[in-house]
């Protein structure tokens, strides 16, 4: 990745200096990178094209924020991640639960995002045990061991229940496109 990053960096710097040919090459080169980035994180494949275009526009309009002395990849994916979270925040796309968790933790986005995922609603549709252990481990911050003690079940039982419960919620979110 380092050699490729140097290539991208060179193209970006040339573009910043006004070389339109290099800049066009850069933008074309990052399209597959962005597609791969989003494919693993975004639920609905129809959203991919929109997100890639939005990010290209962001790369272009914010290109002054790229530090020429730093690697290009981290800058690019920071922009991509911001755009993804922004779209999710505005209800335009659905993301994988891992990304949703990250977005929930991300500074400044908590308020709007928790309105999007109705956690109580999602947990209500789950079975009793799964909902209870997810609530304990993810919402109340208990450890697996503490949850196991509280529920009177084994630790591996807790882990399996959390995993299955989250999977059900994820499937439901992805299907509903909420």
């Amino acid at each position, binding site marked *: 990745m380092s050699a490729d990053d140097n290539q991208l960096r060179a193209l970006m710097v040339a573009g910043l200096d006004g070389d339109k040919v290099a*800049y066009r090459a850069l933008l074309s080169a990052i399209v597959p990178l962005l597609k791969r980035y989003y494919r693993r994180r975004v639920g609905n494949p129809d959203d991919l094209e929109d997100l890639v275009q939005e990010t290209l526009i962001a790369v272009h309009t914010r290109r002054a924020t790229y530090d020429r002395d730093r690697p290009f990849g981290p800058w690019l994916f920071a922009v991509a991640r911001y755009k993804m979270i922004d779209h999710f925040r505005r209800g335009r796309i659905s993301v994988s639960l891992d990304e949703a968790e990250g977005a929930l933790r991300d500074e400044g986005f908590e308020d709007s995002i928790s309105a999007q995922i109705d956690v109580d609603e999602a947990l209500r549709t789950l079975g009793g045990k799964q909902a209870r252990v997810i609530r304990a481990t993810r919402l109340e911050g208990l450890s697996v061991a503490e949850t196991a003690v509280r529920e009177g079940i084994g630790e591996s039982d807790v882990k399996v229940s959390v995993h299955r419960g989250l999977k059900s919620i994820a499937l439901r979110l992805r299907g509903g496109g909420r």
Partner: protein
Amino acid sequence: MKTGQLIESLAQDANPVRRHAVAAGVATALLAGTMLSFVIVVALVGLRADLVLAVAGPSFWMKFAYTASLACVAASAFAHLVRPGARTPGLLWLAIAPVAATGGICVHQLSRAVPGDRIAQIFGSSWSQCWWLIALLAVPIYAALALVARRFAPTRLRMAGGVAGFTAGAAAATVYGLHCPETAAAFLLIWYSFGIATATAAGALLGPRLLRW
């Protein structure tokens, strides 16, 4: 629009970008906001009547050095934070230096004063208006910094907002020093800092709302 067409039109629009565009943008915003704050100070509360005399004395420059150095550290950190993927700028730790220096002077002054004077050093005559006037004067500076941030690309909005508030508060405190007659280091350390802290907190709270791009 197909992605290929989009790339074509973006490439056509690719005018050169200055190497130090971010630093220049932040500096310009800071200057413009501070000038506006200066106008407000003059119009609202006026410059101190003994200003010409004051600049000949050390306490004026102690206040200036304290607030201006904090503003410089904060502004540099802010310039980092308007770039995507920026982490907490290590250079914020430099802010400890002016605080420590002023703290040293404060201890020295307090230790040499009789107990009655200590109260005067700590509260002065204007403590109750100093801190919120500084926070108020920080508003136009924060607004200018927020506008420039939206042209760039901060990804940590609460931190960028807080550092913008810190910058605005420290710059506002520097302008406020042109009006404020207090001379004690204790007053400076407590009330000026409280004003700057207020601006910082407000800036952090507003960051996620105002700095989005």
